[in-house]
């Protein structure tokens, strides 16, 4: 673009001349003049931006990660180095393959059969510059991908694992890992559970929605998976960083609260009770160690590999196409492909479309339900799920929930658990034990701004012995954590400024502010009760204590385990929160593609796609309508278990041989002519209309064609259907341009696509 003067020269001239210009009056006028019409002599140098994309700027296509922009990244070589290095914050993979904008799908087509986030599968076959071969390809190396790769390798399979992060920057943000009946726990004296009890509790909480095979396998075999994994790790590493949680310290809890059973089984990988004592989450480093073990067993890891599409033909998946760190396309061919690429929680368009609960919670708050940013979620970008859908997979049915709306909206003490909660008027207003594991959205739908003052007294530690092992609960098996909390509580500071206590729930490094007072009156003032509300609070505490004496909550039916918690002995403590403000977002999203329970991915007709497996958060039906579970940490534990088990199921499939359905069917048919005789039907949807074409063939010729339907609205007039059918019959192909101008273009395309599909089926 030729300028009469460069920007720098112009600026310097302005400064030197001490001249102030209203530039808009000069340049803006020229812009407007240019828009007036072809006869306007607007300056040639003023021109609009060219219509470009990021790809034009960088001359690359799908490779977006710029993975080599961090040349200083260095993989930790030992746990100590990892702990120090953790401060660099490099975490989490994300594929971010293709954007809605790049796909060119207009907004008006969003939420139709081809939603914007899905778009068309790109044909990348012509771009592949090199190819690799394996028995098994694993896409993604989080919990599930790592266990799948390791277990394939230790069964002697040739496995390639492609991971989007480089080895140097590899990290993830999982922290707790729940499994059941592992030797690791049983040796510490943890109770041995009947897997049927675990299964039943999960299925009840899932309202029957989850895949029973997946849940039963998890109940029966997750402990085995944990022990298998631990055997690959150095003993001293396990002894130092693997903490079996909750196997002691809740001695008065009988395992049931409000009809829900709770099970011990969470392993936390933390740097606590050590010399460095950083409380860092060590799980990501543990996963690194497991990846190294898999490589020792012969697995090949390709780091920095960004998955783009699956290779699929005749209904069978035989590989995938990636870009490497240099942006080169490569293909991995494999007999079995395991997608372990995570969830879609970090993809706002998929979250909007697929997560019913988050979208509608936003709506219930009066927020714009089409605003994808109204409800945050913390997961991955959903590209693995997208690849599977392109290959014919189907999503599990809704309602689909985030993990987990409302999970943290109830106030809690740093030592976790359930305590009496008082509202705006000082009265309790819900059953605290029902909302034990978050509220799965319930608190989100209460009116905004209800105070939730969670109150206890100096007996808090004793009361904790009656508490369930739960999300947000401190691990009372961890002596270090327990002592730290006791120390902070002993050093309490009374007054409206509150005091801070180290919290050990969640990631563990987060402080919680508590308020303390020597009398309940003072506490009421501190937490904001005035006038009638203050008296209401004091009366309610008295009433609560009376119900505790009776051992029965006549107001809200709280579980008997809570009725030990009289609020009577100073000092008194409170933590506060309010309802609403926003619908609680989720962590990852658990909804994903349907499988047959042994991780074989299903099509819409619920037949498996040969060669395709989904595990971890890419595998659907692991939960019900919410992440409502009897043990914290089961998301990661379940994901890890799915990878472990999928490796066994696919190994058995490989032993038998994986075959494309089309190939199998072809073997049963025979012909001496051009076609397999018979009548064939195919339906195609082009976004607005579904057309169904039926065609009958003899071995030598096309005998008849009819167009049965053009969708619910029947947009295609009968005379055009007949004319087009006749033209197709005459041509014997999809070359029917003669009638195209007279036909609604999308219906015409649907007919052509359907007949092309029929030809493919019928042609010998």
């Amino acid at each position, binding site marked *: 673009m030729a300028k009469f003067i460069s920007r*720098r020269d112009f*600026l*310097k001239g302005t400064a030197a001349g*001490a*001249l*102030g*210009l209203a*530039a*808009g009056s000069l*340049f*803006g006028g020229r*812009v407007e003049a240019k828009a007036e019409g072809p006869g306007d002599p607007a300056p040639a*140098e003023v*021109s*609009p931006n060219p219509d*470009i994309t*990021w790809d034009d*700027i*960088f001359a690359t296509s799908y490779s977006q*990660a*710029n993975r080599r*922009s961090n040349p200083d990244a260095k993989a930790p070589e030992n746990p100590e180095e990892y702990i120090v290095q953790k*401060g*660099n*914050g*490099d*975490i989490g993979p*994300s594929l*971010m393959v293709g954007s*809605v*904008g790049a796909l060119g799908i207009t907004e008006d087509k969003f939420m139709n059969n081809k939603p914007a986030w899905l778009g068309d599968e790109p044909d990348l076959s012509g771009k592949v510059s090199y190819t690799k071969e394996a028995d098994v390809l694993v896409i993604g190396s989080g919990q599930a991908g790592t266990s799948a790769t390791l277990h394939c390798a230790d069964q002697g399979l040739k496995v390639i694992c492609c991971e989007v992060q480089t080895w140097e*920057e590899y990290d993830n943000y999982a922290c707790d890992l729940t499994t059941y009946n592992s030797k690791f726990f049983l040796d510490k004296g943890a109770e041995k559970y009947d897997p049927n009890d675990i299964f039943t509790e999960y299925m009840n909480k899932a309202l029957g929605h989850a895949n029973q095979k997946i849940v039963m396998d998890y109940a029966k075999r997750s402990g085995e998976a944990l022990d298998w994994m631990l055997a690959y790790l150095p003993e001293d590493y396990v002894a130092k960083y693997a903490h079996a949680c909750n196997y002691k310290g809740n001695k008065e809890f009988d395992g049931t609260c409000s009809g829900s059973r709770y099970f011990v089984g969470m392993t936390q990988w933390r740097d606590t009770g050590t010399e460095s004592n*950083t409380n860092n*989450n060590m799980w990501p480093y543990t996963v690194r160690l497991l990846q190294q073990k898999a490589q020792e067993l012969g697995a090949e890891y390709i780091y920095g590999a960004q998955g783009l599409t699956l290779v699929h033909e005749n209904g069978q998946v035989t590989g995938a196409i990636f870009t490497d760190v240099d942006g080169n396309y490569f293909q991995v061919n494999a007999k079995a492909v395991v997608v372990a690429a995570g969830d879609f*929680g*970090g993809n*706002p*368009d998929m979250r909007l479309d697929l997560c019913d609960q988050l979208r509608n919670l936003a709506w219930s708050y009066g927020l714009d339900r089409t605003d*994808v*940013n*109204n409800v945050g979620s*913390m*997961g991955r970008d959903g590209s693995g799920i997208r690849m599977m859908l392109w290959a014919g997979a189907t999503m599990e049915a809704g309602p689909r929930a985030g993990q987990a709306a409302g*999970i943290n909206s109830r106030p809690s003490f740093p030592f976790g658990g359930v305590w009496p909660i008082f509202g705006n008027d000082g009265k309790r207003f819900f059953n605290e034990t029902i909302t034990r594991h978050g509220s799965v959205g319930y608190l989100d739908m209460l009116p*905004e*701004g209800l*105070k939730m003052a969670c109150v206890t007294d100096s007996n808090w530690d004793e009361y904790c012995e009656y508490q369930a092992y739960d999300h947000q609960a401190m691990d009372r098996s961890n002596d270090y954590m327990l002592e730290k909390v006791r120390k902070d509580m002993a050093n309490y500071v009374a007054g*409206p400024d509150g005091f*801070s206590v180290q919290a050990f729930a*969640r*990631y563990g*490094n*987060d*402080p919680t*502010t508590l308020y303390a007072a020597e009398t309940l009156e003072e506490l009421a003032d501190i937490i904001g009760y005035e006038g009638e509300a203050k008296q209401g609070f004091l009366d309610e505490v008295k009433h609560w204590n009376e119900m505790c004496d009776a051992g029965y909550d006549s107001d809200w039916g709280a579980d008997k385990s809570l009725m030990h918690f009289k609020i009577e002995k100073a000092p008194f403590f409170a933590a*506060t*929160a309010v309802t*609403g*403000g*926003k619908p609680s977002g989720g962590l990852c999203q658990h909804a994903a593609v349907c499988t047959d329970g042994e991780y074989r991915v299903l099509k819409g007709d619920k037949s498996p796609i040969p060669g395709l497996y989904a595990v971890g958060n890419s595998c659907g039906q692991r939960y019900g309508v919410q992440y409502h579970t009897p043990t914290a940490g089961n998301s990661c534990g379940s994901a890890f278990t799915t990878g472990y088990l999928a490796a066994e199921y696919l190994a058995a499939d490989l032993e038998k041989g994986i075959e494309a359905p089309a190939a199998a069917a072809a073997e049963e048919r025979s012909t001496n002519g051009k076609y397999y005789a018979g009548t064939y039907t195919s339906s195609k949807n082009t976004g607005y209309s579904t057309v169904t074409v039926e065609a009958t063939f003899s071995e030598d010729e096309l005998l008849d064609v009819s167009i049965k339907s053009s969708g619910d609205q029947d947009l295609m007039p009968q005379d055009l259907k007949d004319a087009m059918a006749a033209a197709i019959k005459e041509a014997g192909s999809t070359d029917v341009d003669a009638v195209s101008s007279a036909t609604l273009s999308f219906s015409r395309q649907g007919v052509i696509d359907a007949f092309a599909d029929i030809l493919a089926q019928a042609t010998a």
Partner: protein
Amino acid sequence: MKLNIPFCTRKPSFVGRALVETGKTDLVRRYMLALAQELAANGEEFSDCRVEAIRLGGGSASIMGGEDFDRLCRLIRERYDVAEDAPITMRCSPADINGANQPFFNRNHVSRYDLEFYSLEPQDFIHLDCLNYMDQLPYISSGFLRASQRPVMGFVLLYGKKTVSRYGFRRSVLETTRRPVSHVLLQKCAGADQMSEEECAAQLAEAAELLTEAGYHEYLPRRWAKEGSADRFWTLSAAGTPVLAFGLGAVTVIDGAVTRNTTDLERYLTYSGDYEAITETVTPV
């Protein structure tokens, strides 16, 4: 270098500055491409300049998402001379800290986040016209940002609003001091709910006392930081270092002149690659 990303998903009533309210990812992506074209078109003009600090603000800059941010950083490093240790500060909605964005933010060395919490007192949100992200804070702080291991996490806190709860502002500041927060920006309430100037000054004085006691220092008015965590961009620009600014309404100060980009979004989207077409005013410093 200052990059204006003047969007937010919902503009709270207490925010005075001009912001484009949108949840449309397409519009944001169009804007990011326009910004890229302005950056690309002007790169050679400033080849003698070394970028010492980068600030992404002018709105909830994180709304652009990790993908576009990654490309933007790549473009800047390709076309401009960026000092190796140049810190990148991003004004950020807590909602945008997630597993899809964070790898890109980390990989491009975002070293400071100004998180728009506005308050840390739950009861304030009854009156505050903004979303409450307190539930996500543990995940943001410990899970994603690793704030206890590195000085990256900063909070934007609101002061001078009439209807916050009795202890609200004080508790927000106290809560800040108890968390691994490296820096704090105190943002004054705008609009009808603004307290009197005297009351605003009293809140600032209270914050000053609490923050000073907790080891923060005020390096510029209403900007507080722990030792070594002052925003280099603001420090340098306050000291008179030239500022290259790009985006809607961006104000560049260099060569003794101040240029202001247009605040007309459509004009910027259409002509961002042509400095003449988007420059609104040019005045001597």
